[in-house]
């Protein structure tokens, strides 16, 4: 019998000491790393269906948990573990919480956000209505931010030379390095521009501690030219912003101000508010004024309706006018009343001519301006002079400093300062004392020992002629701080420290007008990131470690000394006689803005002597010219690993997953480039195009060519942000051949920042682009209806003229729910029901004829004037069910939407908001190129050429042959662009519902066209029968069920669809139901006086207030082009839009009765402008 193993003698046994916490006990770095990294990686397998292995593993984990070893849970606070036994005060499981924060964007300028948090995880960003830069709207980058937050490819480890280390070790090592430099000699900080007062303060402290250290700021898409122009104009820095709500005439000099740059969201909102023609609003205004007048005079109010022409004039008076001069085709250009395609380097000449015309000193019109441009200058100048103080010129960041300066001078001349143009204290002020170019030179000279790279990726995006990667080899210690292990981090840097996402960190930021906001974390860092503030605070020996304390420490002195005394008094707490900072802070956290922080500035008069300065100018390029632009979706590439952004069909071009060298059709023909649609998906997917070699200043890349109508000729536009080498599996998959796009930074240099001469040589090679919707001409259909203001005044029902079937205008209107005619029809239905109840024979609505139809004479059917087909001719008798005494067929609530094509700029924020709200999967370039894009909102883009013929577009019209069309599309100057967002139209007579064999798509009582995912068997018949083709099918398993991080970003209120299931826009049914449930809950409760907590509506049921429900697209829309509400609520905004004369139902003539309808676009062109200009 073998001897039983015996325990070693007590003296030899290593007895674990008693411990209280894991941290105390397990102190080895290796074990810490194990704790942090091993388990989270495996966490996804826990969520899979329980297999035998998993069951055993889970059992083991339970044992581990029971033993107090808790490696995979990291609570938000990291200081105290609070189990859900006692529910946190403010948190109800299933009810989302919203926190105000702000996202630092281009130039470090912040956009105020409200972030939706579900059970502690942020899932969606929405605009903060209190923030002046947002007012509740939002743009693409911010909408996509939650996906970046949950991106599993984000870096999660501090590394030293590629091997794992810890933040503490890094801090010690870097501090030693700084100490060794004594006064900071050879130490350089390279950061992105920041408007954060705290970061600026800490950097100031840093430079004080190490006086010889230097700070450079770099951003590939910076506002350097504008800053230079401001400095030249006022001899001191200032921040410039615009007030488009006060602008009657706007001239954009190559500025895509509606979608790009600081303030774009606010600008789009102000601009959009003045693109809406609303007769009903005008009538209400007359009514109000009449009442007020009567009141003032002490009379009994009595309203005399104004003359119709007065009404029209009043509605039209609001309209602004937008002129755009640009080389590329942007959203702003598409929204313009007049658009002049001009080579970017000639825009300066245009500005000079305009300035000269308006009498700006030192400005002289260049000789080589084209005839059209000269006419433009004349007419624009006249138009602007006529509206002094209400005109504004805005210049794009791509334009030379000279252009910016000229624009400033023109604005001053037009009296815009203080009216439409405003100034504030500079935003990215701070002790920066170095720039990238000088840094490159010093690095090469070996003078830099320690280089901090904070939030920048210069190896990828610095000007190519600096050869930044090579220069970095000459620097001893390089410390990289960023979200990803990117091109700069891994092969080149000594240390890499993962950055915390802005949704994970404390901070502060200034908005476009200088208003400061607190960046409030929504979640503890998910991947061990540290914010800039934490990093700087750790390196400084001030003892400030807590980022929240650091931010507060910035604002306490502001509150104490700088805040306006009147404002300050509001923050008196009951218990304290003097104002307290804490109350101010709480308000700031709740509202998302720090009150009283916008510092207006009056920089004085423009100094005109610099206007002729050649140093500020860029030479006009005679031959082919390249323009670099930030990508409309990816921007400069900072969020390149974001599938939502990559897959979003870019505004106007509809390109996904790629950038391309964009040229006009005429230039393409000259350079012999061709583009065709592939057989596999054609216009709605795969565009096959030529590859080209693009040479700029001797630097070359291979790039695909994309032909975009309406661009200026002889211009190549290449968007930045693509072609990443190391950015994660989306932006740079292991298979390099599939890397999305081409790296434009390889061409860009200090000698070619925005524009430069270029050479484009065709290669004998083809490439395919995934273009979701490339077909351009209208094909004689009129899905988008539009008119000029003059035409609108002459014939306000222009949109009703049926473009497709002959029929009666009123019948078509009756088929558009929400219109007066539609209500009349419903009244007829009700009459039928009453008759039926009174024992009279039931008459189907189909049996209704109009009065006198059977008689002889005009209007009789013998004359064919009455087209009965346009009556609601359902085969199914109206449902005779009543619910609570309500006619179920007519509906208790009737949800409906209008989309104003006049103010829609095609920016795609709606599509992106919908992606974030509704868990729309990312399917990849291959699937998009097969025509299977999943976005619930498709933004159709059409081109047309205005002709002398009123209303009709010749381009694509019946009379134009395909050959002629091809010829006409080359005339860039004459092309108009139209955009039309098409979500599900929620037809009252939905063709999709009838054909589903299993009843998977059905109508709800309130008129939603519902999709029952788990009933769907995937016959796709509904999609075929949808005339709008807005249904989307999961042809493969698109939703990501496997990647751990990706699950957390999903909205738990929306089903994640499986393979083989149809889906489509639901009008955000989850939001509707939540609001209705809330309304019913409140309605059931009684106040002490016995009345209901919520009032009843006209039918005696709980009232849902207008505007209480916002669909995700509506909420996001920067121009507020989308209106949603209940048609049965007489006060609802949507009902008012439905009653507008230019409201029309898309394909209403086929009797679908779409609940979504469109307000035809009304443009405001200058009648004096030459035809086609």
């Amino acid at each position, binding site marked *: 019998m073998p001897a039983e193993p015996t325990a070693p003698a007590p003296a030899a046994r290593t007895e674990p000491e008693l411990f209280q916490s894991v941290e105390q006990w397990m102190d080895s770095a290796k074990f810490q790393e194990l704790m942090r990294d091993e388990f989270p990686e495996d966490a996804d397998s826990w969520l899979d269906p329980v297999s035998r292995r998993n069951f055993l593993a889970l059992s083991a984990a339970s044992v581990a948990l029971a033993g107090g070893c808790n490696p995979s849970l990291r609570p938000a606070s990291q200081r105290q573990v609070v189990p859900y036994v006692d529910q946190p005060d403010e948190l109800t499981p299933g009810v989302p919480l919203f926190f105000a924060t702000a996202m630092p964007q281009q130039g470090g300028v912040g956009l105020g956000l409200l972030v939706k948090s579900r059970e502690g995880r942020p899932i969606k960003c929405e605009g903060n209505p209190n923030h002046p830069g947002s007012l509740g709207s939002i743009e693409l980058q911010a909408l996509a931010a939650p996906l970046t937050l949950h991106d599993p490819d984000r870096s999660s480890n501090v590394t030293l030379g590629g091997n794992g280390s810890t933040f503490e070790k890094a801090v010690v090592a870097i501090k030693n390095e700084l100490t060794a430099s004594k006064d900071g000699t050879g130490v350089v900080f390279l950061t992105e521009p920041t408007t954060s007062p705290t970061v600026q303060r800490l950097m100031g402290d840093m430079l004080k501690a190490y006086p010889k250290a230097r700070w450079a700021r770099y951003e590939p898409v910076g506002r350097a030219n504008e800053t230079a122009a401001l400095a030249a104009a006022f001899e001191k820095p200032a921040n410039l912003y615009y007030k488009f709500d006060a602008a009657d005439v706007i001239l954009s000099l190559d500025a895509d101000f509606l979608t790009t740059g600081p303030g774009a969201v606010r600008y789009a909102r102000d601009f959009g508010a003045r693109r809406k023609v609303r007769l009903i609003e005008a009538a209400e205004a007359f009514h109000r004024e009449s009442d007020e007048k009567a009141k003032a005079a002490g009379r009994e109010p009595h309203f005399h309706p104004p003359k119709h022409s007065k009404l029209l004039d009043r509605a039209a008076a609001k309209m602004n006018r937008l002129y755009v001069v640009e080389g590329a085709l942007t959203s702003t250009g598409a929204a313009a009343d007049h658009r002049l395609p001009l080579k970017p380097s000639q825009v300066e000449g245009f500005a000079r001519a305009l300035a000269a015309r308006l009498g700006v000193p030192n400005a002289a019109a260049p000789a080589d301006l084209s005839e059209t441009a000269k006419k433009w200058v004349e007419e624009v100048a006249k138009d602007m002079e006529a509206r002094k103080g209400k005109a504004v010129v805005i210049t794009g960041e791509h334009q030379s400093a000279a252009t910016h300066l000229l624009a400033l001078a023109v604005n001053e001349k037009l009296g815009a300062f203080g009216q439409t143009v405003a100034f504030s204290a500079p935003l990215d002020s701070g002790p920066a004392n170095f720039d990238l170019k000088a840094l490159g030179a010093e690095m090469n000279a070996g003078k830099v020992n320690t280089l901090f790279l904070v939030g920048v990726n210069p190896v990828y995006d610095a000007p190519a002629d600096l050869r930044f990667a090579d220069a970095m080899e000459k620097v001893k210690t390089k410390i990289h701080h960023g979200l990803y292990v990117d091109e700069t981090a891994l092969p080149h840097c000594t240390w890499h420290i993962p950055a915390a996402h802005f949704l994970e960190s404390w901070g502060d930021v200034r908005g476009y007008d200088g208003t400061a906001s607190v960046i409030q974390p929504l979640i503890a860092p998910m991947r061990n990131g540290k914010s800039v503030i934490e990093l700087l605070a750790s390196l400084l020996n001030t003892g400030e470690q807590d980022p929240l304390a650091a931010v507060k420490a910035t604002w306490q002195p502001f509150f104490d000394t700088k805040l306006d005394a009147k404002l300050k008094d509001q923050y008196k707490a009951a218990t304290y006689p003097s104002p307290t900072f804490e109350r101010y802070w709480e308000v700031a956290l709740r509202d998302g803005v720090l009150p009283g922080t916008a510092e207006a500035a009056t920089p004085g008069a423009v100094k005109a002597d610099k206007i002729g300065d050649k140093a500020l100018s860029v030479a006009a390029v005679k031959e082919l010219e390249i323009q670099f632009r930030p990508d409309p979706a990816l921007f400069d590439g900072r969020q390149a690993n974001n599938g939502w952004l990559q897959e979003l069909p870019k505004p106007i071009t509809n390109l996904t997953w790629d950038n391309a060298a964009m040229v006009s059709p005429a230039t393409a023909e000259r350079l012999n480039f061709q583009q065709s*649609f592939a057989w596999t*998906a*054609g*216009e709605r997917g795969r565009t096959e195009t030529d590859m080209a070699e693009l040479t700029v200043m001797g630097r070359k890349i291979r790039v695909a060519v994309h032909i975009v109508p309406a661009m200026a000729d002889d211009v190549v536009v290449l968007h930045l942000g693509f072609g990443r080498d190391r950015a994660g599996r989306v932006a740079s998959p292991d298979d390099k051949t599939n890397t999305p796009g081409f790296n434009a930074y390889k061409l860009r240099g200090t000698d070619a920042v925005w524009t430069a001469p270029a050479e484009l040589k065709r290669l004998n090679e083809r490439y395919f682009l995934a273009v979701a919707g490339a077909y351009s001409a209208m094909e004689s259909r009129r899905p988008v209806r539009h008119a000029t203001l003059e035409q609108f005044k002459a014939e306000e029902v222009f949109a009703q003229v049926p473009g497709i079937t002959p029929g009666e205008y009123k019948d078509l209107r009756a088929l558009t729910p929400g219109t007066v005619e539609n209500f009349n029809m419903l009244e007829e239905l009700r009459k039928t029901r009453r008759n039926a109840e009174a024992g009279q024979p039931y008459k189907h609505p189909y049996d209704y004829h109009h009065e006198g139809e059977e008689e002889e004479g005009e209007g009789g059917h013998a004359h064919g004037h009455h087209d009965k087909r346009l009556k609601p001719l359902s085969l199914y008798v109206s449902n005779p069910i009543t619910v609570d005494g309500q006619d179920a067929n007519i509906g208790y609530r009737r949800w409906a939407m209008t989309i104003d094509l006049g103010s829609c700029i095609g920016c795609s924020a709606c599509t992106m908001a919908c992606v974030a709200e509704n868990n729309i999967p990312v399917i990849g370039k291959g*699937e998009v190129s097969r025509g299977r894009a999943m976005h619930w909102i498709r933004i*159709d883009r059409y081109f047309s050429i205005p002709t002398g013929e009123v209303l009709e577009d010749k381009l694509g019209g019946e009379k134009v042959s395909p050959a002629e069309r091809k010829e006409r599309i080359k005339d860039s100057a004459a092309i108009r662009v139209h955009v039309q967002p098409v979500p599900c139209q929620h037809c009252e007579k939905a*063709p999709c519902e009838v054909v589903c064999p299993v009843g998977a798509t059905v109508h709800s009582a309130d008129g939603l066209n519902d999709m029952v995912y788990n009933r769907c068997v995937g016959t796709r018949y509904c999609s075929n029968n949808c005339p709008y*083709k807005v249904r989307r099918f999961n*042809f493969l398993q698109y939703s990501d069920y496997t990647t751990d991080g990706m699950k957390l970003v999903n909205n738990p209120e929306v089903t994640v669809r499986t393979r083989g299931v*149809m889906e489509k826009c639901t009008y955000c049914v989850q939001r509707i139901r939540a609001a209705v449930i809330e309304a019913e809950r409140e309605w059931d409760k009684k106040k002490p006086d016995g009345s209901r907590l919520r009032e009843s509506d006209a039918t005696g049921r709980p009232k849902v207030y207008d505007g209480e429900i916002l669909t995700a697209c509506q909420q996001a829309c920067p121009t507020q082009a989308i209106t949603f509400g209940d048609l049965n609520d007489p006060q609802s905004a949507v009902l008012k839009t439905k009653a507008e004369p230019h409201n029309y139902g898309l394909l209403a003539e086929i009797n679908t009765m779409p609940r979504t309808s469109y307000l035809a676009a009304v443009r405001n062109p200058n009648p004096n402008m030459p035809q086609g200009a």
Partner: protein
Amino acid sequence: MATATENAPAPPGQYPPHPEGLIGGSYDTVTLGDKIADVVIGDYPTPKAWWGWFLFGFALLQALVIGVAYLFWYGTGVWGLNQPAAWGLAIVNFVWWIGIGHAGTLISAILLLMHQKWRTSINRFAEAMTLFAVMCAGLFPLIHMGRPWLAYWLFPFPNNMAVWPQPRSPLMWDAFAVSTYFTVSLVFWYVGLIPDLAYLRDAARNRLQRLVYGVLSLGWRGSAYHWRRYEKLYLLLAGLGTPLVFSVHTIVSFDFAVAVVPLWHATIFPPFFVAGAVYSGFAMVVWLAVPLRHYYGMKDLITDRHLELCAKVMITTGMLVTWGYSLEVWMAWYGHSQREWSATMQRMWAGPYWWSYWALILTNSILPQLLWIKRVRCNELMLFLIAGSVHIGMLFERYVIVITLTRDDIPGAWGRYAPTIWDYAVMFGSIGLFVTLFCLFLRFLPMISITEMREFLPFKQGGRDGHSCMENAK
């Protein structure tokens, strides 16, 4: 009633030619029975070509197996379907096969009720063709579904989920129409087989054959009661099958006609589809009859006259179909609907698929006009080639209809469709399934009805000169 001596069979080789040319050679009941049964019981050596065709079909069948396995593993996305064109080759194939499946029941039921004696030689294999074609057809709606494992939801079945099919959908009607059609066709075919199976049982060369055919013949003893019941049932089933011939393709056409897609939404579709179905069905009968005549020496039973009659049916239905094509264009123009008319323009010349429309017109309307010429329609090779043209034409017809989806109402949603290799795998694989099943049928069941052919023999040759069930019914 004729006396026994009058009806005594004349010695073999001495009978006069059949007045209508519907049967050649000199057969009496015995030799005729042997001629057909020998193939099955093995006395007639299996032709080498049978092996060739069987192996060809079986190999293609593997493409179907692999294609469906791949499809089920990854999802319908392996096909070339996309957003505007959510239906593709699978639905084309479905309609195509259903169409082919038409001729069998038409021949066996309608022609029977119409006293068309010439149906007798071809009804058995035509019915088999129907069954196999409907099997191929039925496969496609099933596998084209996004979630094929839930296909049973199209049928009303009691369940605790309170779900029920949506009766307004043509796809639900389809499920009923096709399954009913298949069931009735199967029963009809099997009932017709019973006396033949008994014959095979009696003529069996070995125990296995005797056992199998014995079980399948359901105890048939050939008593007068049996015959009486058999004939009544056969007649009843013919009556039941007749409306189904029309209903099934009418309902299949509703898949399109009920939709609001321009050019689908047309009242002409039901008759137009039925005519097209008969057209393609007869083309397939020709395609099957010609090899049978050659490889099995059946020229005496399936005569030139039969082929000519098939050709005449084809020219008739072909003209109906052509009339349908012209009406489609006419209605689009006359209806004054811009969407219909521009969809027609897209289909005919402005769209990317104009060639498929003209390929359809060429193969379905123009080439078959040659059948007007007697020399052509009586030439086996020419007829075979023209029938092939009709197969292609009918495939294109459904293709042209389905790809109307790519350019319908809103130009912003337009796209294109092209099948992938996996579309083709199931398409050609289904042909493999058909060929395999048909080869097995030829080998193991009498390809021509022994019973009915014996009845069909002239009185002098021991027959009844027609369909006994019809003559008795008279």
